[in-house]
């Protein structure tokens, strides 16, 4: 019984592999595991891995997935990890047709992992890396106590994605210069007889002294340079190097940083990668059945087009389809761009037949930001009923603010630029010549979640060991809306006039203070960007 099921799955797998290879996909080998739903929830909580370091946050995810499946009938559809060979999981209760669909989907993901540039630097044996991390952290927990280690991990995870996502691709920043690489030697306690040396100066003790010495030297050097030459994006790496930390703490930061760098490409290419897998699944399943009629496809499109929040993955699939069609019909280049006749554009077909070539080229080098900037076109936008929305404090609700292509696109890009996070950098570790940390938030018009940012500063303080400062910009209300205008224009809300104000948030281990910034300081951190789509006539 069991072996017949395995034979059946193996048969399906071969078919799926043949299908994707015939289509031009080039995935690594994939090992499929069949798991029950509880295991699937467990692996989902571990981001697909069989093992992660012990931490309650994975328990929180597990609890979330369990409740979702038990009470809302919501399942993880497929799970695949970026390793070579890749590992993927199939739900025990899937039917053969479902399994075939999932397998094609998985193979497309793995093709993406293998061939997309942004994945080119991730370790291919990440399961082993995760295992080693788990072991090391367990050792630390045994040695220093679970509470102490876990609470340090809590703090470290605050900076989980405050790293330089491009670090694997360029050499810069924190690489030690040649002369620094010489290990400083701690003085030994003089011994009369050589054989006594390893008892009086045990290697482990020497090792610890050596590390402390090195740290002290680095801190001293840091103090010499009043400012780093350029603000530095890798806050986690900076603290790892210069923070007042024990060796085990430093090691934990290194592990978390390594894991984050592994996950970064997945965040950077989520729309493309999910869209790519959906695109091939629906295309190959449709060809395998018959074209244009595949039910999942119709389902998918209807899901994107029914009201609600935009499903970026389904958007990804539509963009891939659009690229394929445009390059098949020659809808690109100068002539196409210059053509202003919508009717002509609608019937445009040069039979260029370059679609397949084009999508493979895009999948090789693009990430989401590039993908959206270039291929989220006004024509595609016209087909979808998209709108931008904003929060209006006066009504306490989100309102539709715009249906213009530019506004929607800028909101979309905001969600994906810099991993969808505010851009924050380290300016110096010796602020005010007092060994304090100074962070700069390069403000693009969208403010920080202030309460949470304050908690982050406290967590950083625990790792840095000296006061922590953050320069940012907040909005202050300067004028209430005119109540008369509400009566004249009941069809839209009116909102207050806000003014930007630079602040320095400073946590010194006891108090959190807010100090005003000078206009020169504000100029340093104010980017020339604006993501608000609130119409001018709503304000004031």
């Amino acid at each position, binding site marked *: 019984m069991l072996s017949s099921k395995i034979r059946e799955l193996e048969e399906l797998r071969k078919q799926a592999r043949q299908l994707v290879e015939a289509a031009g996909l080039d995935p690594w080998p994939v090992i499929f595991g069949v798991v029950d739903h509880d295991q699937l929830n*467990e692996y989902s909580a571990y981001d697909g891995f069989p093992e992660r370091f012990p931490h309650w*946050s994975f328990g929180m995810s597990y*609890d979330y997935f369990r409740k979702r499946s038990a009470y809302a009938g919501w399942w993880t559809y497929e799970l695949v990890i970026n390793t070579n060979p890749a590992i993927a999981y199939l739900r025990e209760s899937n039917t053969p047709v479902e399994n075939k669909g999932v397998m094609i989907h998985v193979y497309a993901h793995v093709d993406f992992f293998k061939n997309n540039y942004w994945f080119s630097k991730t370790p291919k044996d990440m399961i082993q890396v995760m295992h080693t991390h788990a072991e090391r952290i367990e050792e630390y927990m045994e040695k220093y106590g679970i509470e102490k280690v876990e609470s340090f991990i809590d703090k470290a995870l605050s900076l989980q994605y405050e790293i330089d996502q491009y670090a694997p691709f360029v050499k810069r920043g924190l690489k030690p210069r040649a002369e620094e690489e010489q290990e400083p030697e701690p003085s030994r306690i003089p011994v009369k007889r050589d054989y006594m040396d390893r008892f009086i100066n045990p290697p482990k003790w020497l090792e610890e002294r050596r590390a402390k010495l090195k740290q002290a030297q680095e801190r001293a050097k840091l103090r010499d340079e009043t400012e780093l030459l350029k603000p530095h994006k890798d806050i986690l790496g900076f603290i790892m190097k210069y923070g007042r930390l024990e060796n085990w703490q430093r090691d934990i930061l290194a592990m978390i940083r390594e894991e984050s760098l592994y996950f970064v490409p997945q*965040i950077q290419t989520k729309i493309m990668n999910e869209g790519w897998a959906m695109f091939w699944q629906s295309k190959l399943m449709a060809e395998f059945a018959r074209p244009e009629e595949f039910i999942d496809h119709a389902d998918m499109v209807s899901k994107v087009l029914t009201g609600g929040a935009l499903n970026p993955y389904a958007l990804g699939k539509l963009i891939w389809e659009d690229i394929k069609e445009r390059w098949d019909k020659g809808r690109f280049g100068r002539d196409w761009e210059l053509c202003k006749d919508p009717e002509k554009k609608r019937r445009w077909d040069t039979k260029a037949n370059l679609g397949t070539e084009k999508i493979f080229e895009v999948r090789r080098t693009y990430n989401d930001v590039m993908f959206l900037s270039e291929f989220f076109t006004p024509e595609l936008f016209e087909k979808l009923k998209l709108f931008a929305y904003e929060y209006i404090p006066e009504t306490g609700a989100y309102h539709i603010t715009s249906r213009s292509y530019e506004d929607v696109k800028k909101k979309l890009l905001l969600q994906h630029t810099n991993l969808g996070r505010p851009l924050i950098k380290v300016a110096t570790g010796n602020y005010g010549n007092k060994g304090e940390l100074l962070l700069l938030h390069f403000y693009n018009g969208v403010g920080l*979640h202030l309460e949470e940012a304050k908690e982050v500063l406290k967590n950083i303080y625990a790792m840095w060991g000296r006061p922590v400062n953050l320069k940012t910009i907040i909005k202050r209300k300067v004028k209430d809306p005119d109540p008369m205008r509400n009566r004249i224009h009941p069809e839209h809300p009116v909102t207050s006039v806000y003014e930007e104000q630079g602040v320095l948030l400073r946590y010194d281990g006891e108090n959190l203070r807010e100090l005003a910034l000078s206009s020169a300081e504000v100029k340093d951190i104010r980017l020339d960007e604006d993501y608000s789509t609130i119409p001018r006539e709503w304000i004031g």
Partner: protein
Amino acid sequence: MAKRILKDLERFKKIVRGEIRKNLKELIETGSIVGQKGGDIVKVPIKAIRIPQFRYDPHEQGGIGVGEGEIGEPIRFDPQQDGLGQAGYGPGPHFREVEIEVRELAEILGEELELPRIQPKGHRHVLSGDEEYEDVSTVGPQALLMKRRAFRKGLLRQLLMSPPLAQGETIIVTPIKEDMRYLYGQPSEKPEANCVIIFMRDASGSMSGEKTEIIRQENWWIDLWLRTNYSNVERVYILHDYEAQEVSEEDFYSLSTGGGTRISSAYELCNRIIDRRYNPDQWNIYAFHFSDGENWIGDTENACVPLLRDALLPKVNLFCYGQVTLGRRSPGLHLIKLKERIEDDRLVTSIISDREDILRSIKDFLGKGR
């Protein structure tokens, strides 16, 4: 060997429990959980259980939606619920609130108030065949057939097997046996104990507003505790002024009348409902009555006391009276008179003078383990 993830889950639950316990009084007083209807899951707003990170203020970030709507209209979905649009986080879900099973929340309440487990009266226990549907199967009873899914399977199969359709040709889907999909679950046998909760409230004008709100909060927690102690719970709501009548849950908390107060009318109705519908041999009966203590002259001693002593108390597991007196108002005498005249473990009284008393009052009522 215990699974790794279970250890992480234990750590998480320990933190959740700690936070809820720390905030229980506040959660009860602010009423932030109350009002979530039915279901097995309650959302508890607890900020502490989250790793803080630098992120945009979701209000300032705005977002993108799909669908109809004029510019200026409020959007019809919760952007933070439909979290797919919120890119920018790493793998794994992120939360604003903790979801907790009703059972777990009741356990925390029980532990925090040191509530003893209820020993149901020595009624016969019925084995119930409850099923939880947790998966999909290819065989099963008609009643559990998932029709949409079956049709999808059928359509898929027919598409796979038939020659290509011409443009515009329609296809008639006839699901066959292989297409059928059924909900699948494990029948579980557990002892069934029946419980009825009878909530009574004075609806006269002086009881509206904050007093009703306090009663609503308190009843929610009482209900939570009882429904996790019994497998089958029914509820009866009785409003009274001079007369009493049975009402819906919604009306129970929203209606208010102008008449005088005659508490015995409610106790009489309560007694009649028990006699007619809830045989004490088969039901664990809990009655809760809330008023501000004012009553028609003579009604407490002449009507309520005999009714309680001779008719109601012998039938119920517990009869709880909560006197809700806000601030300066001189408390009525109903509570004092009851206490003077009746000595019976099954009668519990409690004074609630503001929200801060809710927690203690719940303990007064449920601390007996009856």
